[in-house]
């Protein structure tokens, strides 16, 4: 640890001179009463040392690959197991959301369909059709006046004989 006293000492040291790490001798008994007491590890001094590792070459550990792959494989297996365990649950939950949404939609569509069927029935009520026919000056055909051009029940086209 670089302490404040050590810092001052190092700054007072001439440049280029590397101060050896020395443990200072004990302070004499007669001390200046105003002198601050030493701080812990005040006698430890650190200095920087330049190391040139540019010539170092990374070497593959021939025995280090296996544990690595083992770890990767183990992690993969664990991950797969976790996914295998959790995925159905997640999928189930997602499907549950979708299913509920679809059920609600289906119910709403069924309700809407019934409402539309009611409106259709009201629009096709005989009383309303008669009113419309009267507005259009349409008359009820006489018996056998209408000839179906196709089989009864399938016929969409009919002809009124004059």
């Amino acid at each position: 640890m670089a302490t404040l006293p050590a810092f001052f000492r190092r700054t007072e040291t001439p440049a280029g001179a590397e101060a050896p790490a020395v443990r200072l001798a004990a302070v004499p008994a007669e001390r200046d009463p105003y002198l601050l007491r030493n701080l812990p590890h005040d006698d430890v001094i650190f200095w920087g040392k330049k190391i040139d590792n540019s010539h170092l070459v990374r070497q593959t550990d021939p025995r280090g690959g296996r544990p690595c792959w083992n770890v990767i494989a183990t992690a993969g297996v664990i991950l797969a197991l976790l996914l295998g365990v959790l995925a159905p649950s997640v999928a189930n939950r997602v499907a549950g959301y979708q299913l509920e949404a679809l059920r609600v939609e289906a119910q709403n569509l069924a309700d809407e369909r019934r409402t539309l069927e009611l409106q259709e029935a009201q629009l096709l009520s005989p009383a309303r059709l008669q009113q419309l026919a009267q507005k259009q000056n349409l008359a009820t055909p006489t018996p056998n006046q209408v000839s179906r051009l196709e089989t009864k029940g399938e016929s969409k086209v009919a002809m009124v004989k004059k």
Partner: protein
Amino acid sequence: MVERRLVCLAGFVLVWGAAIFGKLITLQVVDHQNYVRKARARQEQMVEIRAPRGVILDRMGHRLAMSVPTESVLVDPLKLPNLEVDADLLARELHLDRAELLERIQSAHDHHRGYLWVKRGITPQEADDLRNLKLDWIHLDGGSQRHYPNGMLLAHALGGVDFEEKGNAGIEKALDSDLRGAPGKADILRDVRGRGVDELVSTEAHAGAAITLTIDERLQFVAEREIAAAVEQHGAASGSVVVMNPYDGQILALASYPTYDPNQPPGDENDVAARSNHAVGVPFEPGSVFKVITLSAALETTKLKPDTPINCHGGVITLFGRTIHDSHGGNGWLPMDMVLAHSSNVGAIEIGLQVGREAMYDYVRRFGFGQKTGLPLPGESRGRLRPLTKWGSTSLASISMGQEVSVTTLQLARAAAVIANGGLLVKPRIILKEGEQTLPVEAPVRAIRADTAITMRQMMEGVVLVGTGKEARLQGYTTGGKTGSAQIYDYATRRYSHNTYNGSFMGMAPLTNPAVVVVVTLNGTHGTAGFGGAAAAPVFKAVATEALRILEVPKDLPDNQPPPKLVAKNQLLDDVSLADLGSGQPNILEDRDDEDASAQAPTPAANHAAAQPSEAGTVPNFKGMTLRAVLTEAWARGIVVQPDGSGVARVQNPAPGSALHQGERIRVQFTK
């Protein structure tokens, strides 16, 4: 020192872990059920799966009654911030009367009621408007509401439901268990945002079954339109129409007037009266239409034939000290078919006396009177037919002409079907299918012989051609029927009214192979215009014409037939001619439904003398004969004549002596 600290730390961690583990045990094991219950209470919701009430369809698949989802508004009057302001708000949003709503809310508040239905069945727009208000004291309750898209159409047969959609009348009540279905239950798991995550259905919902009726919506509309117009035109109190397939008993139309809108809740007394199904539940004395049963019994139990002369006693007959007047001027001798055609009361009594009490009672029962038809409609009346032991001395005579017995329009239709289908008593049906299952048809019971039914058909055609039912004659179809104009018994005065009638007509067409039976009844008509031939027969004509068109029944007569005209002495009198000609005293056996034809009654001898003998299978020669003689001769031979003009027969087609094909009609031109 360091070791001690490590030991302390380890101990602390151990205790901490033990505490956590203990808590986990508590949560997961000790209080497991408790927390599960709490979690479920928050996350799970038991909801009811709606089972919509079944739809009611007509025979063509048109919807007559159906349920649609709706919402109702509910408030808690005790939590309303300001009754007047809130009532004003609700009244504006729901289009209600503010004062009335405020009164209801105030009343509920004063009675400390925690809920009040403000409005049921609100529109989607109203529901959205209320939701947008975001007021916590307004609650919207989802439900279902019954709708009858055609309004009043078939109201009496359909019936109605209460606010819980439980049937309370008509088919809605009779088939309530089938229509209602069974709602299901589901347990829905919701997330923290209230979204459904999963659903566990505990009970499946079963929707109500669709009920398909035998009713034809178009024909029903015509029947209701015509009977309503007739009731209004003739000032009647009520009316009813039944259109039935005579072979399988399918009811194609069942109209009753006055009517009501089943979409509206019951109202005042008038509305309650309008809810009576007159076609099924209100019996009446049928009058002369009942002579069909009398003559059918006579054909089977006596030696009487259509041309057998019947002594009408000049229109007066005395039975057990009671003098019974024929309503008209009095007939002398009439062939039995003319008794029916001219609706002679005395003639019918004479015939009934020959039938006898036991046979008459038997045949009345055979035609289905005095018993319910079995139609699945609540409130069906069995009519009134007293047991034989309770018949009085004049009961046979009365019943012979349609009094002392009460019937419903539906029963008359059933009886007419016996004549139309060749003598079989069918059970009327109004339910065609329940769901996808077609209901089986019950085997009919033979009531009369087939030849008797055919003979009656021919005699009933005479009613339409030359009798009291001319107004019922159809264009392009052979028609048979019988009119009835029964006086109404006033229980207050214990006398028959002299001015109000039950005018009725029962008929069928085409006679060669009847496709429909139509019975029309007008109750409480007034005056001469209210007789069956004048009031009910035109309704029959309109309804039968429409029925034959809808059913696409081929015509069996050429179009544009001129109306038959009778020779001068045989001119028909209206039912009006049944004026008070008697003593003026109340006469329970008097039926003003006849016409004066007594003076023209030819004797059987004269008839046979006038007819030219012809070989079997060839067309007889009618030239020079009167219409009555021609008809008598034709009926005796079982051939059908189409008269045209008045006077004596001059031209006929096919020519005399030519081959007569089965079912062929002979057109005879009469000129003076």
